[in-house]
C-alpha cells in the first residue's frame, strides 16, 4: 500500500509518552554547580574517601582538562556546559543498610513505582539489588546470603572503604581514566555505583542487579561499576535505569569495568530506560557510557546484552578485550529510538589471544524522527591466530523520517582468522500490520509483537524476569509510532 498510509499509522502509534517520568520529592544534599578541583575535594570529603582515591580523582580531572569532546559519533546536540551541573546529589537522610524500615518512605515508593521491590521478596526471584539514586547507593539487598559464598556485592563507596586492596588492584585497569573524555570525567567525579567480586570457583546463586535513578534536577550521574570474577567464577549481572521527566537535559556518564580470569564467565545485561525527552525532543538524558570487559584468563567469557530504549542521546560501546586464549566475547543489542532520540551504539571486539571468538548481534529499531547508528570494531591482532568473529547488524525502520546507519570497522591482522559480517535493513510493512489487525490485534499491539519478534534473538539472552520487562518497554517506547 501507499507509503503514506504506512507512515501515518507509524506516526500515530509511535507518539506515546514516557511512563517513568515522575519525580520524587526527597530532600537532597547537593554539591554547588560547577567543576573545579574544589568540587572534587568536596565529593571526596563527602564520601570520606582515603587519600589515594582523591589522588586518583585529581589525576583524572587534570587529564580531563586537556581533552576535547569527541565529535566522531553520528550525534547532534548542543554543547554541554560542564560548569552548569551539580556533580553530587544524595538523598539527605542516609538510610541504614540494615533495615528497610529506615529507608525514606518516599524512596521506597519510588522503587515501588519503578516496579523494583527492595524487599526480601526478591529472594524468590533470585535477584539481589543495589539501588543507586542520584549519586548514592541507598540499599543493597541480600548481602549476607552472598557473603556466605564469599561474594562481595556492595556500593562502590563501601568497597573503597572495606576492600581498598581490591579496588586499588582493579579500578581503572580496563577503562583507564585516559581512555576518553567521558571516562576521564567519570573518574574525576564519579559518585557511586556497584562493586562485585566473585571468588575463585564460585557461581553466584543470585542474579545481581543494580538500579540507577537520576532524581535531582541539573544533576549529573556518574556511576562506576567494577566486576571481578576470579578463576572459574560466574555471575549474571543486571542493570536498570530510569529518570524523571524534565525539560532540561541531564547528563549521565558511567564506567563499567569487568575482569574475567581463567574459565570465569560474566553476563552483563542492561535495560536502559533513561528519560528520552518528550515528543518535541525537549529534555532527556545524555547518556555517555564506557563499558568494557577484559577476558584476562584462558577460556574466560564476557557477554553484554543490552536493551536500549531510553535517553535523548546514547553514546555507548560495550566492548570485550579477548586477551586469554580461547576467550569468548559476546554483544547482543537492541536499540530503539523514537521521536527525536539519537543512539550511536555498538561494540568493540579486540582479539589478542589465540582461538578467541566473538559474536555481535545488533538490532536497531528507529521510529519518528530518530536516528539510530551501529558502530562496531572487530580487531584481530597478529597473535590472535584461528580467531573468529560473526557480526549481524539489522535495522528496522518504522516510517520514513527516521534514520538507520551502520559503521562496521574490521581490522584483521592474521590469515588464520575468519570475520563474517551480515547486515539487513527492513521496514514494518503495512501488509504485516493489516494482517495482525485482521486477526483482531490493534496496531499498537501489532507493532509490539512485530518488534519483539524482530528483537527476539537478543531478548532471549536476557534473564527471564528482565526479558518480560524489556518486551513491555519496547512496546511502550514505540507507542504512538508505526505504520
Amino acid at each position, binding site marked *: *500500500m*501507499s507509503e503514506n*498510509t504506512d507512515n*501515518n*499509522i507509524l506516526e500515530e502509534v509511535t507518539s506515546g509518552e514516557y511512563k517513568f517520568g515522575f519525580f520524587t520529592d526527597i530532600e537532597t544534599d547537593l554539591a554547588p554547580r560547577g567543576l573545579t578541583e574544589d568540587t572534587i575535594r568536596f565529593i571526596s570529603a563527602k564520601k570520606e574517601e582515603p587519600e589515594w582515591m582523591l589522588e586518583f580523582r585529581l589525576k583524572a580531572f587534570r587529564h580531563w582538562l586537556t581533552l576535547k569532546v569527541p565529535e566522531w559519533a553520528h550525534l547532534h546536540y548542543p554543547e554541554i556546559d560542564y560548569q552548569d551541573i551539580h556533580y553530587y546529589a544524595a538523598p539527605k537522610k542516609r538510610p541504614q543498610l540494615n533495615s528497610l524500615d529506615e529507608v525514606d518512605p518516599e524512596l521506597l515508593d519510588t522503587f515501588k513505582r519503578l516496579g523494583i521491590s527492595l524487599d526480601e521478596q526478591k529472594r524468590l526471584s533470585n535477584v539481589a539489588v543495589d539501588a543507586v539514586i542520584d549519586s548514592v547507593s541507598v540499599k543493597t539487598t541480600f548481602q549476607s546470603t552472598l557473603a556466605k559464598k564469599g561474594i562481595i556485592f556492595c556500593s562502590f563507596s563501601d568497597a573503597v572503604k572495606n576492600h581498598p586492596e581490591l579496588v586499588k588492584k582493579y579500578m581503572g585497569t580496563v577503562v583507564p581514566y585516559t581512555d576518553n573524555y567521558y571516562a576521564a570525567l567519570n573518574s574525576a567525579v564519579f559518585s557511586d555505583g556497584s562493586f562485585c567480586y566473585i571468588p575463585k570457583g564460585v557461581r553466584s546463586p543470585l542474579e545481581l542487579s543494580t538500579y540507577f535513578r537520576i532524581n535531582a534536577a541539573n544533576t549529573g550521574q556518574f556511576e562506576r561499576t567494577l566486576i571481578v570474577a576470579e578463576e572459574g567464577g560466574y555471575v549474571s549481572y543486571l542493570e536498570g535505569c530510569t529518570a524523571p521527566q524534565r525539560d532540561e537535559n541531564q547528563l549521565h556518564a558511567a564506567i563499567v569495568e569487568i575482569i574475567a580470569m581463567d574459565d570465569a564467565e560474566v553476563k552483563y545485561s542492561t535495560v536502559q530506560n533513561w528519560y528520552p525527552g518528550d515528543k518535541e525532543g525537549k529534555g532527556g538524558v545524555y547518556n555517555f557510557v564506557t563499558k568494557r570487559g577484559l577476558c584476562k584468563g584462558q577460556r574466560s567469557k564476557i557477554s553484554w546484552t543490552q536493551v536500549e530504549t531510553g535517553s535523548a542521546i546514547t553514546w555507548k560501546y560495550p566492548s570485550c578485550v579477548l586477551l586469554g586464549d580461547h576467550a569468548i566475547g559476546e554483544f547482543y543489542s537492541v536499540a530503539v529510538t523514537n521521536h527525536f532520540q539519537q543512539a550511536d551504539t555498538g561494540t568493540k571486539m579486540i582479539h589478542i589471544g589465540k582461538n578467541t571468538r566473538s559474536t555481535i548481534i545488533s538490532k536497531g529499531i528507529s521510529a519518528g524522527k530518530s536516528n539510530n547508528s551501529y558502530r562496531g570494531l572487530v580487531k584481530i591482532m597478529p597473535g590472535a591466530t584461528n580467531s573468529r568473529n560473526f557480526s549481524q547488524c539489522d535495522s528496522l525502520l518504522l516510517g520514513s523520517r527516521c534514520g538507520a546507519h551502520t559503521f562496521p570497522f574490521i581490522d584483521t591482522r592474521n590469515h588464520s582468522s575468519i570475520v563474517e559480517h551480515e547486515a539487513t535493513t527492513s521496514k514494518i*510493512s*503495512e*501488509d*504485516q500490520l*493489516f*494482517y*495482525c*489487525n*485482521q*486477526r*483482531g*490485534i*490493534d*496496531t499498537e*499491539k501489532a507493532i509490539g*509483537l*512485530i518488534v*519483539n*519478534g*524482530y*528483537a*527476539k*534473538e537478543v531478548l532471549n539472552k536476557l534473564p527471564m524476569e528482565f526479558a518480560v520487562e524489556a518486551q513491555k518497554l519496547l512496546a511502550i517506547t514505540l507507542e504512538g509510532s508505526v505504520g
Partner: protein
Amino acid sequence: MLLNIKDLTVAINGKEIIKGLNLQVNKGEVHAIMGPNGSGKSTLAAAITGRDGYEVTKGEIWYKGQNIVGLEADERANMGIFLSFQYPVEIPGVSMTNFMRTALNAQREYRGQPNIPAGEFLKLMEEKKKMVDIHAKLTKRSVNEGFSGGEKKKNEIFQMALLEPTLAILDETDSGLDIDALRTVAKGVNELRSSENGFVVITHYQRLLEYIVPDYVHVLSDGKIVKSGTKNLALDLEEKGYEWLKEEAAV
C-alpha cells in the same frame, strides 16, 4: 441478515475499483464470488475488512445490524469478520502460537472475556491443528515464514478454525493447494458451517465449489456484480469463461 452491502463504491488512491456493488449474505449461507483477474474481488474483501487505503466513497456495509464503514480493521475482526488472505503475510520472529494467542485474547477482551488459560489454549490449538491437518511443527515456527504456498493457505484456515468467525471471507484459498489439501480445507470449512455464520468464498475454480457447496454464485466484473445464480452458474463459467457475460451485459 449477516452482511448487507448497499451500492458500494471503493477507490484506491482516487481510482474507483468497486463501482456500485450490492451483496446480501444471510446467516447459514455460503456465497461464491468469481470473476476475471483484476475485477475487484480482493478489493471487495479489503473494503469489508477495513483495510487502510481502500476508501469507501459511496454506499454502506451493514454487518450484524451496524454500518461498519469507518470502523478500524481490528474492530471489525473483533466483531467476527475473518479474511483468509490471498497472499498470507510473513512475520519473522513471531511464533504462530504467540500470534494466535495474542489474536484470540484480543478478541476475547473485545467480548469482555478474560484471557484464555495457557493449558486450554494449547488444547484448542491441538484440536484445530488436527481439524485442518497441519503439521505440528508449523505452529512453532514464525508466522508464515518459509511456509510453502499450500501451507500458508492451510494456515489461514487453521486460524479461522481457531477464531471461529461469524463471517469468513476466503480469498482464493484454493489456489496453490494440492487435491488432498483442498479436501481438508473444504472439510474444515464445512465443519465450521452453521446456521449462525456465513461464508464468502472467492475462487477461480469450480472444483472448490464441489467440496464447499455454495448457496449462491456471483460474478464480479469491472467492480460490479454482473450475474448471480446457483452453483450451476459456476459450471457454466467453467465451460464458457467470462466473455459471454460481457456480451450479455452489452446487449
